[in-house]
């Protein structure tokens, strides 16, 4: 099989640690955000973000999800729990086969229909995304929960391209300016903790910022995600339990252990 890891029973999250030992670490993501373990923190430095809609380039089917590549120039994420300046590298999404699951993080055990991840890296300390991903403060990922409801107009710019990237490895230009900032819920507090990438190699280099309030996307938009296939056009369908569709691509939660989740009310 061409896929070395995935979400089926043969190559799913339980098996990742065999090839990617970091996946068995004690700073892994996602986690269940239990309100029992939360400390509120008030920072004088508000979390701020700025993106350049024209720099959003194209959407790719990675075989695990759709991913939008961004030219980070001019973007900026700083303040809140972060030291220094982070810029946007890419954003992608996790979802489930039905609307009652799909998010990676959960809140008091509750799952959402999906979770958007905006992946940033620390340009104050590091020279490249790859270098940053080797350090504990290298990346900052913003997580935004999706719930089924109203159509999200900005997301439409992506779902419009998804039929053109049905198979793994395909790529399509977005063609119109797209503002990733419109995926971040206004007026929402957030949770922050030290974690990892949620896909192999599961490197423990991520400062997580998970927004409390979900944004709404329509059922049809979620259905468009579920039509992506996890194999290349020229390959045969790997007959896993999802018939080769990317139906569930979320990693189950892992123990918080000694880590602390802090809650910030913007």
């Amino acid at each position, binding site marked *: 099989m061409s896929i070395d890891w995935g979400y089926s029973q043969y190559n799913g999250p339980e098996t990742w640690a065999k090839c990617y030992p970091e996946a068995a670490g004690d700073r892994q993501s996602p986690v269940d955000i*239990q*309100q029992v373990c*939360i400390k*509120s923190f008030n920072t004088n430095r508000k979390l701020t973000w700025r993106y350049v809609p024209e720099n959003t380039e194209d959407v790719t089917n990675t075989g695990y999800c759709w991913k939008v590549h961004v030219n980070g120039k001019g973007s900026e994420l700083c303040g809140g729990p972060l030291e220094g300046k982070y810029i946007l590298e890419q954003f992608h999404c996790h979802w489930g086969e039905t609307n009652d699951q799909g998010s990676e993080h959960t809140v008091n055990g*509750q799952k959402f229909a999906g979770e958007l991840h905006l992946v940033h890296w620390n340009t104050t300390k590091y020279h490249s995304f790859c270098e940053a991903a080797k350090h504990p403060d290298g990346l900052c990922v913003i997580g935004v929960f999706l719930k089924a409801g109203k159509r999200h107009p900005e997301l439409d710019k992506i779902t419009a391209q998804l039929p053109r990237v049905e198979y793994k490895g395909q790529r399509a230009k977005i063609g119109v300016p797209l503002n990733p900032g419109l995926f971040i819920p206004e007026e929402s507090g957030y949770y922050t903790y030290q974690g990892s990438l949620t896909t192999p190699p599961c490197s423990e280099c991520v400062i997580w910022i998970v927004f409390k309030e979900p944004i709404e996307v329509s059922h049809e938009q979620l259905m468009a995600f579920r039509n992506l296939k996890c194999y290349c056009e020229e390959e045969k369908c790997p007959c896993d339990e999802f018939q080769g569709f990317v139906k569930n691509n979320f990693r189950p939660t892992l123990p918080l*252990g000694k880590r602390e989740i802090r809650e910030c009310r913007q």
Partner: protein
Amino acid sequence: MCVPEHLLDLCQQMSAQETKSSAKIICIPARDRFECIEKIKQRVADFGTVDPEDMYIAAKTPEQDFAVFEEIRTREEPEAEFRYEAVAVIHKDLDIKGIEGLKGLNSCHTGVGRNVGYKIPLTKLKQKGIIGPLNDPELSPRENELKAFSTLFSKACIVGKWSPDPKINLEWKKKYSNLCALCEKPETCDYPDNFSGYDGALRCLAHNGGQVAWTKVIYVRKFFGLPDGIKENPEKFAYLCPDGTKVPITGTPCRWAARPWQGYMANADVVKTVDELRRKIENLDSVGTKNHAPWLEKVLELNDKTVPKENKIISPGDYLDKANYTDVIERDYGPPFKTVRFCVTSHDEYLKCQALSQAAFSRDIRPRFGCVEEKTVESCMKSIRDNLADIISLDYGQVDKARREYNLVPIVAEQYGSLGGAYYAVAVVKKGSKFASFADLKGAKSCHTGLGRTAGYHAPLYTLIRLNLVPKNACPYPKALSEFFKASCLPGAREIKEGYAEHLCELCGGDIDKRDVTTKCNHDSSESYSGYTGAFRCLVEGGGDVAFVKHVTVPGNTDGHNRDKWAEHLKSGDYELLCPDGGRKPVDQYEQCHLAHAPPHMVVTSHSKRNSEIDEIRNLLISTSKQYTERPDLFKLFGSFNGKKDLLFKDSATGLKSVSQESEIEKEYSKVLALVNGCA
């Protein structure tokens, strides 16, 4: 060996006992079992006694290496792997195809909230998707459970108090009356009932139309007179297994879950020499049983019906999993799992709250407690108003403010032993001092619990106004206080951004033990002179002439009741009460010499919550206080934590009681508040 501190004397008696084994047990006192687990992990102690619930807490502690090395078994069943095994018994010829077939049957239970007859079937049936949802937000957890049982079964017998509130109890028994229909006395549906309890459930099955009974194996054996078969005929009955199959009563029972034994738990360092420790415990058991030593039961949890028995070293988590018991402890109704968030104002309070959350969760107290830390009491009130936190316990003066300014309501009140739910605000002076009346206090140095609080602020201010020592129109009153006293420590006064506030903070010391003056005048435990004990300490060592505290503050911190360095040698006889109408009295005559008779501290929540939510929070608080009033050795809810006093609740509280209407004392006290708040 780690023991809760009140057992220290008994433990030392045990330690002095000669045994065959020459090993010596050293007793390490801890606040409660919760702290014992911590001390065993940190190698301060080697081992301690644990229930399965304590093992659960231990298993969830990060980076632990605990080992359960010895069990406490009963003499009746020393070879049984578990303390008891929960089973389902049916009539052998019952036509049941799989577990789904339980729907619509007549079901016999031990009683409400009990392990084998209630929690275990509920947990396991929920897991198998047989029983309906338990997370209707409109209903409290208990009502959700009852409703689910009521829907699943045609008839049942589940006796007991369904709610601690008699009114709600009656209401539910009417609403879900089919759950009482199989009882001997359906109209009362309470203990004693011939068809309740372990054997009652079997009688209900055999003689009252029951089709399935939830009970323990040992009672099944007794009921059927096994192995002799002289009582009921075992041929007519069968065990129903969780996979839906049947097993003869005479065969090996299939269990739904088992309750593990209690036992002793150590850390990994002890494992090397554990045999010596095991011999010692066994020696102590035989000597103690022979002499009827009081320490046997209290310290080692052994008696003449039990026997210590070594087991293969096992981690507490594996120990519970082996019995399928972890999920029984963890049972919940979600997701989303509800939490009731306690608002706290210091890191120590946060830690106590987290400890409470873990301890209560392990003892099946739901919803779970959560903890939210804020900087001040006032920001807590705001957070509760805005639904960012749920509860906080407040001094009555603050309750009044919370009610007026933040739309919060009191739901439970603290109780103080024989005084019930009220306390006296008093003025304490040193015995040698010359103050004979309140008038003499002019120009003195004063110590207060905190701004806006009853004993430390409202009561003395009220008294000074009443005695015309502070004119009624001398607004604002904090300024008037700063002019009346030469210097004060009134924690929280820094919030007043006026020049005179400096005066009101002058006597404060910051965190004296950490020598940190940046926290000077903070209204929390980071100011050593804050709160009741703090105000008294300000009198003792901070240069204060008078401390405005409550009647139990002096006795609680003198004559050896407070082992902190500054307090260990204090004598209550060196202090006196200054009476508002002149004269002085010994500290125990507060009933004749007090500034105000104050309503108790109360827990408040947001008035905008639904009634069902408020009931749920109230029940949670009352069951928590009940649990830990009965068993302070498990977790000391009312008492100091990490050396800090009055966290979450006042240390002097002895329980919590539901409040609905304003009491006489509250009405009377409202006059005090009207006067002292009348200045603006």
